[in-house]
């Protein structure tokens, strides 16, 4: 059957119109005869999306996260054309990108502000999946890949903050290193391995640079491929409402029906990022000064809740707030599909899971607000 289908594709597309279209068709036909890619691509783009998904904008969170990630990778690649990862030159190169280079304000602005957008989008995507119980069997791997991606993005944020080698990045990293160093037993080792030595210096910057531009991107791309493959393999989780179930026997194609909405939201995000970048230049503090005593280090906003929590666990209790509680949260998220094995997916029929999530979200919000006061 598939062979027959394929044959129709090859014959029909080149003849669908005259002029430039027939040339495109001829080239495409030639490529397909050699690569056999037309059918898999056609299947990918005509994938039947249930109507209850098409009607709910919350299902666009994943696609928009992917657009946001693509923007990050692209703007990041652009900046590597000018960025210089040396402790005596990194700051000047970022200053040059931000204030002198044509469109530099745009590329760095999009990169800096979109980092926050990506964290928010991924967090919302995770919440939707959590509340709709879509992490349950057989979608455990899709869920775990997603949680790992959020962690990789936080890794991007932590390593990226140091790269301008300004006061804020330097001191945020310094604090991060001290927290890693407070890990019971292995703390000093972990800290030294991360730093590449006993001080926060060139070796650290090189390590963070390689992590930020090479290893973390490879990691997140692998996870994206796994995540999308799993999504297509198992299909989107079935509808949980009666209304949704009524719409689950009707389908629209992935392209153009779903992709158009994602592309529109993605374009709106891009416009917002350009607007914000134009009005508020991406921040750059004074150059890193290890001797300064007047700079109060503050982490990026998405780490503020952790930062605030440190204040309630002084002295020897610090690892509880710095490592134990975040570790438990991450471990709990990864293990969630194996802890919660019931088949019930409706949030109002899972009061414990729903209440727990609301409690954790409230705690994060309250801690973040307290940290900004």
């Amino acid at each position, binding site marked *: 059957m598939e062979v027959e289908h394929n044959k129709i594709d090859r014959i029909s597309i080149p003849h669908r119109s005259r002029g430039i279209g027939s040339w495109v068709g001829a080239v495409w036909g030639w490529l397909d005869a050699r690569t056999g890619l037309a059918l898999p691509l056609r299947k990918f783009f005509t994938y039947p999306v249930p109507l209850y998904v098409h009607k709910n904008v919350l299902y666009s969170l994943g696609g928009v996260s992917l657009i946001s990630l693509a923007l990050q990778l692209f703007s990041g690649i652009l900046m590597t*054309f000018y960025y210089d990862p040396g402790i005596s030159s990194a700051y*000047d190169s970022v200053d040059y990108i931000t204030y002198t280079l044509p469109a*530099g304000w745009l590329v760095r602005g999009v990169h800096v502000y979109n980092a926050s957008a990506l964290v928010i989008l991924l967090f919302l995507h995770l919440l939707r999946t959590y509340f709709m119980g879509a992490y349950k069997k057989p979608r455990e791997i899709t869920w775990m890949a997603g949680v790992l991606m959020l962690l990789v993005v936080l890794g991007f944020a932590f390593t990226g903050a140091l790269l301008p080698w300004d006061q804020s990045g330097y001191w945020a990293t310094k604090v991060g290193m001290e927290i890693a160093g407070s890990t019971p037993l292995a703390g000093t080792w972990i800290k030294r391995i991360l730093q590449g030595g006993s001080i926060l210096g060139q070796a650290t910057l090189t390590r963070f640079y390689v992590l930020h531009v090479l290893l973390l991107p490879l990691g997140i791309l692998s996870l994206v491929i796994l995540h999308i493959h799993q999504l297509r393999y198992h299909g989107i989780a079935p509808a949980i409402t009666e209304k949704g179930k009524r719409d*689950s026997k009707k*389908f*629209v194609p992935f392209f*153009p029906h779903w992709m158009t909405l994602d*592309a*529109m939201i*993605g374009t709106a995000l891009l416009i917002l990022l350009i607007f914000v970048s134009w009005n508020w230049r991406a921040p750059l503090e004074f150059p890193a000064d290890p001797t300064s005593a007047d700079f109060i280090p503050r982490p990026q906003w998405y780490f503020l809740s952790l930062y605030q929590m440190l204040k309630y666990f002084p002295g020897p209790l610090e690892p509880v707030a710095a490592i134990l509680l975040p570790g438990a949260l991450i471990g709990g998220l990864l293990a969630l599909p194996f802890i919660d094995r019931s088949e019930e997916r409706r949030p109002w029929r899972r009061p414990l899971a729903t209440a727990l999530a609301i409690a954790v979200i409230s705690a994060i919000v309250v801690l973040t607000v307290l940290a900004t006061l």
Partner: protein
Amino acid sequence: MDKHLYNLPDLESENGEWDERAHSRQGFLRLCFWSVTGLSLTAVGGGSVRFLLGHSLTAPAGEWIEVGALNELPPGQMHRVTYLLRTTDLWRKGELRGVLYAYSEDGSSYTVLSGTCTHLGCNVRWDDAQQQFACPCHLGLFSRQGEVLSGPPPKALNRLETRIENGKLLAFV
């Protein structure tokens, strides 16, 4: 519009069927998709091209440098002068070393030539015995005035603009 373009593959009937809007809205949604995607790609592409071009197409402004005091550049002989040029390489302030040659018949007007061969950019040497410039790379030969005598160089050595100020010879590089 050719109806064939919008054909969708058959679904296995137990799963369900294509919704009516899967067919009816395709043309409109395709238009929407390519409009917003085109807008985004234009913004991203335009910004990227500008960013990557940076200042790479801006010609360097050039600078007057001091070749030497006239009494140190007696007429009738070729003077080899090395100079330092202040440069800005992106954000990096630096210095670039260069070589030029100065010659005068009468001590009042000077010919100042760049020491860079016009063939492939090697530094030429003055051969006092032969009274000519020789490029060591591909044996290009230039006269005292910088004209090509033989070899592969396509044009004469670059002649620099000069001026004399307070008893000093200046050249514009």
